[in-house]
């Protein structure tokens, strides 16, 4: 228990445990699903707003209501915080690129023959968007240290690839990938709730 490697492993286990709640999985899955639904109903602007504005506050609320009462509250050391900041910067860059691309695609779809003359241009845009989302999920997976998110990246990439080859619309494969991730998130959450019942402080 006392070697440096073992202490590092102990810290990593504790950190990973804080991500075993499925909250982020559900929010990402719901975000992608909603994005698909709203693209389909031509309310992509609302979808972008949801993803950009509501994701972080919803995640923080989920942590406060679900995770902390069960798992407890923890703050990690300076080294971990610095690593998190580095990963977060990468996620922000990827998020911004995805957002800009989504807005560009939305404008292209809505313009009547102006911006998007060729459907093939849009398809490359869709493909790029899927790749960016998958990259974001993979970076999140590396930050958290769990393979689950790398798996989600694989799901999005597969859906995007299949969509590109078969000519399925962007909203359909976003919806499909989002629903799969959402279902996985609920399974992870159920496991977490079963494993960690609400614990009130006792004995002190």
């Amino acid at each position, binding site marked *: 228990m006392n070697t440096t490697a073992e202490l590092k492993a102990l810290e990593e286990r*504790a950190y990973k445990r804080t991500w075993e709640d499925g909250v982020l999985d559900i929010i990402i899955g719901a975000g992608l699903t909603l994005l698909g639904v709203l693209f389909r109903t031509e309310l992509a602007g609302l979808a972008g707003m949801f993803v950009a504005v509501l994701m972080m506050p919803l995640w923080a609320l989920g942590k406060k209501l679900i995770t902390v009462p*069960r798992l*407890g*509250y*923890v703050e990690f*050391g300076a080294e971990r915080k610095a690593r998190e900041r580095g990963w977060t910067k990468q996620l922000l860059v990827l998020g911004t690129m995805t957002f800009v691309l989504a807005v560009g695609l939305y404008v292209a779809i809505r313009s009547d023959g102006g911006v998007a003359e060729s459907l093939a241009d849009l398809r490359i845009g869709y493909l790029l968007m899927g790749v960016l989302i998958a990259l974001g999920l993979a970076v999140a997976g590396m930050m958290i240290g769990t393979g689950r998110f790398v798996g989600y990246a694989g799901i999005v990439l597969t859906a995007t690839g299949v969509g590109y080859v078969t000519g399925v619309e962007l909203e359909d494969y976003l919806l499909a990938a989002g629903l799969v991730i959402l279902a996985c998130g609920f399974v992870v959450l159920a496991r977490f709730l079963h494993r*960690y019942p609400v614990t009130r402080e006792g*004995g002190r």
Partner: protein
Amino acid sequence: MTREGDASGAVEDDTSAAAEQLVGLDRLLHEPARLAIVSCLYVIEKADFVFLQNQTGFTAGNLSSHVSKLEDAGYVGVEKRFVGKRPQTLLTLTGAGRAAFDDYRSTMRSVLDGVDAATN
């Protein structure tokens, strides 16, 4: 003295040095439950009682009793606050606790190295 005699003398020196170091170990930290608590707090900055309970798997009473001993020794800092209506006890490893754990680790490492040297 023969070469064999030299070797057995060296082994005796190693083991007696190891024994001396063991006698000087911090007994407060040498208890497995407290060692688990301190190890856990060593790798994080701050945690509440519930998190520590989940990490160590101890009952609330058991954890509380060990934390009290560590707090009395000045190894663990305890801060109580309310989050909404719920009480929360935040625990941190103090500078003294960190130094004591570092000492403990280096003593144990040197004892084990001594034992390894004596047996190989």
